[in-house]
């Protein structure tokens, strides 16, 4: 036993090491990135366990699944939207008989600090019929991640650990335990249970359904679900999940009387505990981070005598992140005034490209080349360059999901918008841009793909791109892009005139062209220089 100061992400990572994990795989994504970063540092210092970045969340998930197949423990970590990418292996891995413990850590981003939506991963766990653990603090992040590996092996299921930004990125002392040894290599004994041909899949699906009562019974008595009943508190009851409990506790003292309270940290939802609470009270307030998941389950379709308060009733806002003040308001406590400066509006300061960023030079070349065109479309993607949507650049028209720029430019071109441009970074291209480029090659779509190669995954802190940048051009040519219309340029203002002219030429070309604009991100360059002293 010892105490360490850890981020929520780091508590999860260390727990996995102590649980005897053999390998971890991920693609970087805020707020989950620090899990793998911690494990990579740990591997460097201690020689193991293996921790590697992957091309995307799907490939990461499948590698972890392979480790489980080999009887050993694996972790895969991702941000919430990363689970969309990994959804195929995730959903199907619920049907195989998980062998070595498989833990899927998903960090949701309510409030969208660094994301394009605030989807709630508890729905995915429910959808796949697997266990989901939702820690409320860094200590639980450690304890529940350790437990997740045991549960995965006990029920032969992948187990989801759901984090949210505030827990992932908040640091405090954590008491950690002793390390368990890794599992020995032992291939999954029954291949049929891993070969989801329809005949086998039907059997496995049925087995998953048949296991449900056992999993439900586990949830009822899980230490992560705690019911505190007060006989004389028969008016308002409170249900909290995950970190919402902290905001409730923060305000508890001022409520001045005990309330019956159910905390949920493990799903499937403990129906028995919920019923016991509901028998005791006439109104229940549901406090949860993300979607009104528990609230909707309680509300169901049929009318009930018990009043259910939460996001659907506006007692808590339906969007954004919870705060101690929102919970305070929901509990009917008076607002606590801070200081203010009447008559002065602090102007907002949105993020922006670093001074000297290579993307700024690429956007300059592109916007100048597009100047005066009637119906140009510039589909963009996920990364620092998304900031090119903001002034002074205002250079792009869309940003939807990883790789979408390429497919959307193709579709827009097919529909008749010209010139059609896709703007994507090197790491995002390798993550999800290669397959839609195949579609464009196959159809020789009239579009221009602009790959902004800053030689890193910059937005999440400069993780190395999965392939060295020098290989991107070969990859593009290997797909069959016409070499006469595949160009490597330097994203530098010294090349401004030549770059603009080249972009103009390729926009005019009626077919598929690819321009790879290369210059290293100045942030990673700085970090490298620092490291070299």
């Amino acid at each position, binding site marked *: 036993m010892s105490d360490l100061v850890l981020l929520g992400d780091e508590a999860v990572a260390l727990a996995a090491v102590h649980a005897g994990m053999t390998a971890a795989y991920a693609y970087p994504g805020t707020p989950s990135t620090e899990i793998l970063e911690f494990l990579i540092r740990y591997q460097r210092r201690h020689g193991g366990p293996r921790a590697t970045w992957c091309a995307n969340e799907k490939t990461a998930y499948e590698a972890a699944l392979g480790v489980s197949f080999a009887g050993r423990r694996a972790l895969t970590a991702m941000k919430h939207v990363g689970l969309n990418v990994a959804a195929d292996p995730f959903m199907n891995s619920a049907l195989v008989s998980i062998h070595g413990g498989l833990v899927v850590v998903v960090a949701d981003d309510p409030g969208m600090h660094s994301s394009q939506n605030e989807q709630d991963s508890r729905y995915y766990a429910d959808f796949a019929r697997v266990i989901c653990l939702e820690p409320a603090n860094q200590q639980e992040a450690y304890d529940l991640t350790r437990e997740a590996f045991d549960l995965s092996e006990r029920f032969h299921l992948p187990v989801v650990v759901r984090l949210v930004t505030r827990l992932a990125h908040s640091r405090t002392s954590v008491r950690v335990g002793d390390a368990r040894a890794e599992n020995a290599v032992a291939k999954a004994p029954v291949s049929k249970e891993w070969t989801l041909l329809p005949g086998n899949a039907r059997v496995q699906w049925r087995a998953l359904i048949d296991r449900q009562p056992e999993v439900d019974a586990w949830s009822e008595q899980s230490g992560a679900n705690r019911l505190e009943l007060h006989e004389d508190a028969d008016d308002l009851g409170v249900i909290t999940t995950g970190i919402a409990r902290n905001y409730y506790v923060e305000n508890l003292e001022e409520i001045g009387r005990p309330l019956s309270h159910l905390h949920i940290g493990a799903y499937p939802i403990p129906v028995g505990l919920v019923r016991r609470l509901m028998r005791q009270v006439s109104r229940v307030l549901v406090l949860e981070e993300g979607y009104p998941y528990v609230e909707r389950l309680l509300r169901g379709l049929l009318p009930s005598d018990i009043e259910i308060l939460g996001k659907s009733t506006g007692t808590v806002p339906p969007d954004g992140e919870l705060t101690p003040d929102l919970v305070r308001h929901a509990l009917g406590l008076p607002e*606590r005034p801070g200081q203010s400066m009447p008559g002065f509006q602090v*102007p907002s*300061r*949105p993020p922006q490209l670093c001074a000297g960023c290579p993307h700024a030079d690429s956007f300059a070349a592109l916007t100048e080349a597009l100047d005066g065109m009637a119906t140009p479309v510039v589909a963009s993607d996920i990364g620092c360059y998304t900031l090119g949507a903001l002034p002074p650049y205002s250079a792009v028209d869309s940003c939807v999901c990883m790789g979408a720029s390429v497919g959307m430019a193709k579709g827009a071109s097919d529909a008749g918008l010209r010139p059609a441009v896709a703007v994507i970074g090197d790491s995002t291209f390798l993550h999800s841009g290669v397959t839609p480029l195949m579609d464009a090659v196959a159809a020789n779509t009239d579009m221009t793909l602009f790959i902004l190669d800053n030689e890193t995954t910059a937005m999440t802190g400069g993780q190395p791109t999965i392939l060295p940048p020098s290989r991107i051009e070969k990859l593009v040519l290997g797909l069959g892009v016409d070499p006469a219309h595949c160009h490597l340029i330097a994203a530098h203002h010294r090349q401004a005139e030549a770059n603009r002219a080249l972009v103009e030429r390729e926009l005019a070309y009626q077919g598929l062209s690819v321009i790879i604009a290369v210059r290293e991100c100045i942030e990673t360059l700085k970090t490298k220089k620092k490291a070299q002293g």
Partner: protein
Amino acid sequence: MKFDIILAGVGGQGVLSVSAIIASSALEEGLFVKQSEVHGMSQRGGAVLAHLRLADAPIASDLIPHGCASLILSMEPLESLRYLNFLSPDGAVVTAITPVQNIADYPPLDELLDRIGKLPRARLVDGDRLARDAGSARATNMVMVGAASHDVPVPAATLERFIEKTFAPKGEKVVATNLAAFRAGREAAL
């Protein structure tokens, strides 16, 4: 005892290093600590906010409630005003005065500093100048730790020890510069 600190600044100003030094020092003094950080998109030149909570009993929420912060410690003047709703009525603002003017509608500096000066407890510190005098323009954030050290419930000696520890890997000279910056900030805020 509870002492909540809002740390403010612009991405790249070293808000997290300030938070880390105060947090480690408080832990060393046996306090409970929670430190909520910002990673990701807003670090790119946007407004950055960290919550640092110190107490002599376990802390539930990672976020500071409105009206509860004892101190706003800001690396940039405009940012010192962004989170006033978190500041308790008797809380203090300690801020550096050099602006980061990377937005079009940045208010006139004199007017801005004037406004800050009118808050009940405000301390404006020329962090950049003191840091340069101490030997490095990059030590502004340690000047600001020094300026806040009168308020923070941790002995200055402990803060100094963690500044040493933090910069030790970068060599003696960097340690000396940052300690000098801390002391200059502490003195300026007397």
